[in-house]
């Protein structure tokens, strides 16, 4: 055992230093509370912690958005919506699906991303933004999902 020969030294901050630190901490807490009570994700890092915060009713329709592609090899595939796949995450596509419906050319970057990351694989020639809907009945999944095409984009070369 090592015996402590003397009590460790204590370094204090000055009055001003302490006041500034306390004020900054209190202001930070204020920003966090403000963010959680009134703001949106836009206020990051002081926005609300809203991931998975919604109450989903027992009879909800659960939407799942995906992108389906027809390739130049004639196959139809599900586009891997992640950074390694098409370079775009599913959450980004879901968050922007309204804009994509209005302007399907936004899907072009999915094809570009895929072509850039996988130059030796079949290219996408046509993309479809598809919404799968799963129905809940009394909080349980009822049957397989139904699919709806939201937007179609013929890929530019």
């Amino acid at each position, binding site marked *: 055992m090592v015996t402590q020969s003397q009590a460790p030294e204590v370094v204090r901050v000055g009055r001003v230093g302490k006041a500034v630190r306390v004020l900054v901490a209190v202001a930070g807490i204020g920003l966090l509370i403000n963010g959680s009570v009134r703001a949106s994700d836009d206020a990051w890092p002081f926005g609300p912690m809203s991931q998975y915060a919604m*109450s*989903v009713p027992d009879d909800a329709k659960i939407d799942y958005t995906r992108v389906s592609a027809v390739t130049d090899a004639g196959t139809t595939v599900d586009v891997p919506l992640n950074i390694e796949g098409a*370079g775009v995450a599913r959450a980004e596509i879901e968050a922007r699906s309204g804009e994509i419906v209005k302007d399907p050319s936004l899907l072009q970057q999915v094809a570009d991303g895929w072509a850039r990351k996988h130059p030796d694989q079949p290219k996408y020639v046509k993309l479809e933004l598809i919404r799968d809907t799963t129905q809940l009945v009394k909080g349980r999944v009822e049957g397989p999902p139904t699919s709806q095409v939201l937007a179609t984009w013929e890929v530019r070369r």
Partner: protein
Amino acid sequence: MSIANWFTPTIALARIAWLRTILYLFVILDMHAFVRDTRDKGEHPGLYQPLLLARLFDLPKPSVANTTVLYVVLIVACLIGATNYFPRVAGWIVAPAFTWWVLIGMSDGKVDHDHLALVIALWVLPTVKADSRGITSYSDQTRSEAAGWAIRCIQICVIATYFLSAVAKLRSAGWALSWPGSAVLTWAIVRRPHPVGEWLLHYPWVLHVMQWVGIIGEFCSPVILWLKGRWQLFGALFFLGFHAANTAILLIHFLPTVVCWLAFAPLERIAPWFQARRSDRDTGEAEDQAEHGRQAEQQAGA
């Protein structure tokens, strides 16, 4: 005054040194494993939608040039900061650079909520003046109020991540407590299907129990700031278990928050513990040698 002192407890500088090394190295991991699409966004800024902070500071749109520079600067500054040589200079570079990095990563319609404590930690760490450099800083037992304030800020942000997510659950239901009895986990599993979660879909009541445990834990989380010793450890273990469950069911790990739980850990005791062990062993060896010596003398005398 006592409230002011609560914000500035005296904590050994060694804890700051450990956190510097761990968090700056974690940032490098984060840039490759978690917020890893920032440079992709520089190449394809099509979906870029700047967040409030980026607009306030009029930050440029991500490009190949600025995201590459950001990447290199961050890696170099993190490596320097992690050594505890020039930790404040490096720290003041890492803080804004990583904030910008994450800001770009989240500027496309989706914002994650696991980076609050880490980002704030990076901003408060460089406010602490180091007494010693490099390897000796890990055993610096000098207690400092500046260190205590930085640690307290990180702790508050870790806890806020949980408490405020309970608040968000009330808010999204119009300030009502309908979340724990709702089908939110079922919804989440359907959208992120994988074996453990899909098996649980058959038992909605289990999911409801988990929702209740989660929200009650989140609401009670601030208590941990005032707990001490092993009770605080139990609190921390509860939330680490909570993350383990989330990872198993939803593949959501929250590691950038998890690593900041180390602000609660008495890391400053690592070096003395290690030294004590070593000196125990040294004393043991010294005694062995003395014993050998005595035996040799006896043999010589015999």
